[in-house]
């Protein structure tokens, strides 16, 4: 079988899974639906591995294949095929997506067990994986947009999964609207590309672009900026990020899969995929890099003060994606993709841990109420520690190698790109502090009520299910989380999924150790070989130097967190008092929601109100009622003629004919 056939199979299984579960949800037992869903993704992963092996069997230069099933649209000079493009980059993404998805499906198999919408959940989840795979495998911009929009819908459906929870449906709508803003950017970019290059096909576009455009010409810059709008909306970069923290209203496996590991990295993939265009528009690439830098710092500061466990991790996700965006924008393509992979491991793991702890807390997410879980949940705690260490880039964990590779590249590129290195280290310090803030708040200390119950009886506490955001009491019918909670200690699928991810988060970085091996860099090389920046390689010495600095910063950050939250637990409150303005700014998330509300929502509402009250009432209604009134008045006059006197009708008739006859007589004479 050829490589593309395997890739088609990768797409087929999740789609089949989604359809089978979606159509048969009444007939299928819940367990079967879960098994089908998990198996479908597992098979997709197996096919992804087969694609990889097939690709590895070829000459590095020849590792790109386009294949199409049939014409998707063929009219008016437009020739779009239902085609996929298989090259190292797309196969890499396929493996990350299907691999992490398989584990998260397995986790959901246990975690969502008592949810009334179990089958619906797996159908959506499979649909999401299919959409994401379509996005990464698409062979032209049209299919990319299709996958892009499908993914947005899947995200909406899964955020609003507990659809009787008002905050969840609101968050879903917010995510959808902001994602559509991004979709519009992407669609406009595709239009511009078609106008200038006459094709949507990746291979044609990327070979023709350097011949048609000169560097930094305004059209190519516009194309890249529009692509960035799409990428920023999907990847939650400033200022289109506000949907991501709210998206935590969805079930925790969704947060792990969509809002940490896969979907939000689509923007990074987009920039890497269209790197040929960004190489031609360095200005746009720099804008992207600075946005990524701003995002990673802003999100890092917000994560420092969030008390909602999932939202804190969500801001950390934003911050880490900021690193990836910086990476792929300054030309550190393989480093950015490497960080994408390791981040998928440890961030999915952290969300799984969060899910387990939230379950133990009977669905409450406030870290102020948590303490002493170290003794109560040994496995979960170990995983939290591993995930935290990897996120904080502790030496020799996966995040350690991937994050520093981006920063080392920035330094090697020189010029003002050194800023990215130094501010990136500041971000790394923030990362270490906020990560271990969570760890030190949750694990040590005196066991809270829920943790104590777990230690004493081995049972998860039961509580009235309530909305963690508003405290409203919820019923446990369809559209709400089930009344039972499942923690990793008592559910083997969750344990297996977390164990595998924990292992990967620890050792995943070893595939790419400077001076030792360069697996991912070598594998992705053919994709990025045409980039003018591909010759930049930081020296091994510089990389180890960077790794040393990164390791020290990580340990210092963990030390600060230890000092603040364990050694002197009274200091944080004091610091909050001392730095009140900064705290208020961070706590209110830099007022981005308010800013967007003020700049966009309110003016649009104002225009709407004007249209309703003034334009609609006066102009539109005036026209409509005016027309109706005229017709009615005319009718009233004509009605008088209809008197009922037959003889008057006859008179009118005769007079009319006589008049006509007279007219023609006069005319003819």
């Amino acid at each position, binding site marked *: 079988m050829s490589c593309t056939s395997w890739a088609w199979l990768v797409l087929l299984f999740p789609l089949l899974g989604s359809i089978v579960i979606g159509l048969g949800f009444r007939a299928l037992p819940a367990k079967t639906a879960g098994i089908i869903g998990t198996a479908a993704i597992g098979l997709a992963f197996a096919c992804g591995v087969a694609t990889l092996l097939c690709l590895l069997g070829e000459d590095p230069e020849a590792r790109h294949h386009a294949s199409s099933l049939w014409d998707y649209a063929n009219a008016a000079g437009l020739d779009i095929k239902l085609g996929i493009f298989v090259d190292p980059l797309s196969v890499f993404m396929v493996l990350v997506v299907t691999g992490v998805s398989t584990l998260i499906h397995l986790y959901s198999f246990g975690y969502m067990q008592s949810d009334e919408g179990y089958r619906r959940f797996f159908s959506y989840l499979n649909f999401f994986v299919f959409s994401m795979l379509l996005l990464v495998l698409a062979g032209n911009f049209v299919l990319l947009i299709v996958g892009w929009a499908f993914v947005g819908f899947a995200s909406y459906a899964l955020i609003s999964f507990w659809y009787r929870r008002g905050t969840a449906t609101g968050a879903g709508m917010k995510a959808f609207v902001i994602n559509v803003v991004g979709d519009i950017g992407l669609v406009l970019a595709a239009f511009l590309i078609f106008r200038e290059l006459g094709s949507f096909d990746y291979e044609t576009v990327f070979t023709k672009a350097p011949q048609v455009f000169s560097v930094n010409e305004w059209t190519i810059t516009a194309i890249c900026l529009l692509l960035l709008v799409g990428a920023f909306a999907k990847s939650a970069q400033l200022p289109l990020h506000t949907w991501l923290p709210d998206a935590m209203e969805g079930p925790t496996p969704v947060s792990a899969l969509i809002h940490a590991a896969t979907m939000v990295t689509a923007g990074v993939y987009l920039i890497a995929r269209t790197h040929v265009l960004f190489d031609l528009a360095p200005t746009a690439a720099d804008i992207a890099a600075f946005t990524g830098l701003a995002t990673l710092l802003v999100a890092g500061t917000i994560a420092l003060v969030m008390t909602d466990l999932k939202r804190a991790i969500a801001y950390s996700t934003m911050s880490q994606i900021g690193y990836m965006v910086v990476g792929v924008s300054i030309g550190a393509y393989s480093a950015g993709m490497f960080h994408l992979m390791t981040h998928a491991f440890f961030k999915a793991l952290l969300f799984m841990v969060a899910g387990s702890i939230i379950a133990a807390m009977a669905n409450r997410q406030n870290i102020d109420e948590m303490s002493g879980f170290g003794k109560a949940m040994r496995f979960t705690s170990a995983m939290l520690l591993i995930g935290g260490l990897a996120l904080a880039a502790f030496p020799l964990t996966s995040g350690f190698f991937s994050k520093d590779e981006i920063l080392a590249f920035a330094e090697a590129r020189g010029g003002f790109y050194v800023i990215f290195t130094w501010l990136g280290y500041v971000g790394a310090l923030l990362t270490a502090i906020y990560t271990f803030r969570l760890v030190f708040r949750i694990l040590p200390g005196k066991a809270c009520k829920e943790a104590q119950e777990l230690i004493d009886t081995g049972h998860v506490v039961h509580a009235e299910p309530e909305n963690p955001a508003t405290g409203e009491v919820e019923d446990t019918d369809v559209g709400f989380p089930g009344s039972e909670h499942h923690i990793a200690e008592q559910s083997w699928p969750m344990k297996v999924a977390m164990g595998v991810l924990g292992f990967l988060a620890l050792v995943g970085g070893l595939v790419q150790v400077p001076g030792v091996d360069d697996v991912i860099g070598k594998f992705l090389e053919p994709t990025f070989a045409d980039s003018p920046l591909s010759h930049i390689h930081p020296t091994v010495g510089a990389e180890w130097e960077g790794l040393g600095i990164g390791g020290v910063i990580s340990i210092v950050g963990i030390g600060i967190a230890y000092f603040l939250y364990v050694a002197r637990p009274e200091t944080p409150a004091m610091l909050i008092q001392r730095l009140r303005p900064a705290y208020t700014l961070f706590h209110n998330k830099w007022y981005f929601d308010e800013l967007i509300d003020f700049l966009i929502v309110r003016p649009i509402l104002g225009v709407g109100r004007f249209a309703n009250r003034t334009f609609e009432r006066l102009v539109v209604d005036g026209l409509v009622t005016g027309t109706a009134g005229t017709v009615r008045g005319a009718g009233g006059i*004509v*009605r*008088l*003629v*209809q*008197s*009922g*006197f*037959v*003889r008057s009708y*006859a*008179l009118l008739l*005769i007079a009319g004919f006589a008049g006509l006859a007279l007219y023609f007589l006069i005319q003819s004479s």
Partner: protein
Amino acid sequence: MAIEWYVVLSSLIFAVGAMGILTRRSPIVILLCLELMLNAGNLALIAFSRMVGNQEGQVFALVVMVVAACEVVIGLGIIVAIFRRKLPLDVDELRELQG
């Protein structure tokens, strides 16, 4: 005989019929007057047909007669129905159909 005579006679009969319709109130008389007008038309048709020298006008006259017969059947039917219901036989009284 010249065509004018026929046309004049036909016009006179037509005018008599029209005046009858406009002035009389009994539906029976109105029907009779309608008949007069139709036959005035027939007369003109046949006269012109003879002048031109073909039979098309006569064919039309026959069609008009058929139409007139149908119209009389329906008209008289309505009048009988009015009579049966003991309504006044006066077109000015029967004026419920008004705007």
